[in-house]
């Protein structure tokens, strides 16, 4: 049908925005154009695809003004013709068809599946300059029919040869383990606990990273106040936003990030700074200033927090553990940097007996104290991997896709609370 209103496909150009920002004057202007999609289905239900595009700007000043889908003129462009940014900018591309095929394939094999993707472009203008960056992430998660708990989730990378068969096999193994799972006995509270490669990155994120985000550290998080050596000297924790999924090469204030060593030689050795906190400590931003979106203020945030690889052969760590717990997946966590503690929801774990994995365990909650837990790390494997533990981090109401990494790690002390 011929509609009386045809959608104009041109002119669209990101260059027009660049020119506008360069001529906008001294005010700092942040513009984001984010496309996101989710494709989901389960056996017996229709496949649904949700796509959404967020275009918005935060324009510096007193007060800072945030606007949804502003006109080009609002960010320094010409007054005529009036054009919304959503009509000017090239829409960030998504790979929905690939996600749809994966989801269809998994549903055909009897699994529930959800594909989630985002592609964000940002522009930071001010003082006649413009910085740009792009962040993107794709992941897929699988569930068993009738059970909303995620069985397996995986980050999808451009060169990954992931097929529904490979993913379905992993989901099948996990479903089988879950069906055999038994509750952790009341007498089994405590360590040691071996974390599969990647998983201990979440511990570093919650216990170390949150305490050393500079606004938190400056308000006196327990870790920031810890001057004495408390962790093994071989343990190094680093935050490098250029690694992992949703990496960034320019933060939301236009600063290129540098890797920050947070923990070294058994002590705290760094903090994550945005421009405001850098000013407070008379330092320079480390490029960790991020916004949850154009409506949110900048906060110092983690990018990819990881534990550096050690020199212990990873395969020997479980073998050298006579009795304990092997954690394969954690699905959620909550940190209290002031008290130096965090709770973690363990959703996939096995009992270790005689150096072997013997019994699958039902979900449970562990609580870790930063000084006690990191101080009890006695084995760090040589098998560093990223993004086996996936999640969004929410701080002060701002969600952000973050990344973690770690080798196989053993802690001698954990507290199982349920």
């Amino acid at each position, binding site marked *: *049908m011929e*509609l*009386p*209103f045809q*959608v*104009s496909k041109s002119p669209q150009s990101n260059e027009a925005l660049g020119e506008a920002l360069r001529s906008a004057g001294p005010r700092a202007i942040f513009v984001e154009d984010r496309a996101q999609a989710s*494709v989901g289905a389960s056996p017996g239900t*229709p*496949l*649904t*695809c*949700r*796509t*959404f*595009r*967020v*275009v*918005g700007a*935060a324009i510096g*000043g*007193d*007060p*800072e*003004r*945030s*606007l*949804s*889908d502003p006109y080009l003129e609002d960010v320094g462009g010409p007054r005529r013709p009036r054009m*919304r940014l*959503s*009509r000017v900018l090239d829409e960030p591309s998504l790979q929905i068809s690939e996600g*749809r095929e994966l989801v269809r394939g998994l549903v055909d094999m009897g699994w529930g599946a959800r594909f989630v993707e985002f592609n964000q472009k940002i522009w930071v203008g001010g003082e006649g300059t413009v910085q740009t960056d792009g962040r993107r992430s794709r992941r897929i998660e699988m569930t068993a029919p009738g059970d909303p*708990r995620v069985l397996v989730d995986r980050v999808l990378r451009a060169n990954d040869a992931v097929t529904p068969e490979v993913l379905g096999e992993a989901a099948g193994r996990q479903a089988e383990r879950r069906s055999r799972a038994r509750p952790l006995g009341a007498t089994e509270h405590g360590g040691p606990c071996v974390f599969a490669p990647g998983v201990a990155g979440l511990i570093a994120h919650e216990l170390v990273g949150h305490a050393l985000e500079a606004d938190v550290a400056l*308000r006196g998080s327990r870790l920031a106040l810890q001057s004495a050596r408390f962790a093994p000297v071989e343990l190094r924790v680093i935050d490098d936003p250029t690694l992992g999924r949703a990496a960034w090469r320019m933060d939301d204030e236009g600063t290129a990030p540098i890797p920050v060593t947070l923990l070294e030689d058994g002590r705290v050795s760094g903090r994550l700074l945005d421009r*405001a906190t850098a000013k407070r400590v008379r330092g320079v931003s480390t490029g960790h200033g991020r916004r949850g979106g154009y*409506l949110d*203020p900048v906060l110092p945030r983690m990018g990819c927090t990881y534990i550096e690889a050690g020199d212990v052969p990873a395969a020997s760590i479980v073998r050298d553990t006579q009795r304990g717990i092997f954690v394969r997946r954690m699905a*959620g966590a*909550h940190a*209290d940097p*002031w*008290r130096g*503690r965090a*709770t973690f*929801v363990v959703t996939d774990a096995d009992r270790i007996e005689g150096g072997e994995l013997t019994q699958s365990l*039902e*979900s*449970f*909650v562990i*609580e870790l104290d930063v000084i006690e837990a990191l101080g009890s790390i006695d084995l760090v494997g040589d098998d560093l991997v990223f993004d086996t533990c996936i999640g969004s981090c929410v701080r*002060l*109401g701002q969600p952000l896709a973050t990344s973690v990494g770690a080798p196989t790690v053993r802690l001698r002390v954990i507290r199982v*609370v*349920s």
Partner: protein
Amino acid sequence: MDWAASTAIEPLVIEARALWERARLVSSAPAVEIYLKQARRWRLRRGFEPSDALESGTACRWQARDRHSVSHVAIVGTDRSHLQDVMERATDAPSSESGSLAVGKEFPAERTDLETQDTSLNVSELREWMARDPSVDSLEVGLTTEILIGAESWVGIRTRARSSALVGRHPRLVARRGLGVAGLPDRFEDTQENGELEVPLALEPEAAGPVVAALVHAFHLGSVTIGSQVGEGWQVTDDPLSVDGLAGGTFDDAGFPASRRALSAGGRILAGIEGPGTYWRRSFRDAPLSLPSTIVVGAERSAPAGATVVHSCRVIPLARDRWVLEFPGDPTRFVQTDPGSLVRACRASFGPPAVTADGAVTPGLIFDGIVPR
């Protein structure tokens, strides 16, 4: 400054009508609905310049030709070409049950549900309130205007004012209806000394809020067992008309008239949350679903005598029948329970009701037999 007066509704209605006309042409559907939401927020954050945000978004639903399902798309902003583009490209768009699209002659041509609470903004009062307590991290006040254009071109207009703050050294959200700080708590408990917690356990409103929200989802949404036993203290109403409520209104987000609904009383479950009058959107991006509006828990004039009082609680669901309650403090305490035992253990309430950040209006709640360790 009176924000209600400064936020012109008429241009938004005209905008929404134009979007509706465009959506009808693009979809050729027998029934089309436009939901337009605009939010203006003013935020003060310690150590930063204030910020003023204007956010708008549009959602469109249209009935499929088979009349059995409803497609849904949403855009940031109110640009008609953008909406048309998104509708034309929508494939496998999420659908919701056709019953949630308000179609019929019984809908009045126009109805309004305007904020009755104070909508004047006194900036110096907000600054003074924030300066009084260094543990207040940020303060935000906001006014939302929602325009709904329905199948027969009827119009629904709703405005709401809300204020919230991030308070305390362990930041947590407090919220109230209206613009300003009146009604926000003036003391922020920060350290909870969790010595030996003994039964019964008395959860102050802020601690009860997350528990109420989790129990409502477990027992009053989805498949509901009417008549099953609950504790005497579990007296719960879904009240979209509550003048203190952060959510709700005289009509739901699909346009159906909304009314109070007793969910539980006298130790029994009376009803679930479903059907017309309960269709709410989590945000303008989401299609309306059966959801609670403002949950109001009945208050008694009792005191938590002999009970251990806690003012912070987190619910961690491990499985459908296995929850962990976390009581942050020194030391942090935990208890593993199941939703059924928890709702039956709700023996009584105490103190006056308060608006919680979880959306419930609840007094303190007393639970028997829940022993954190």
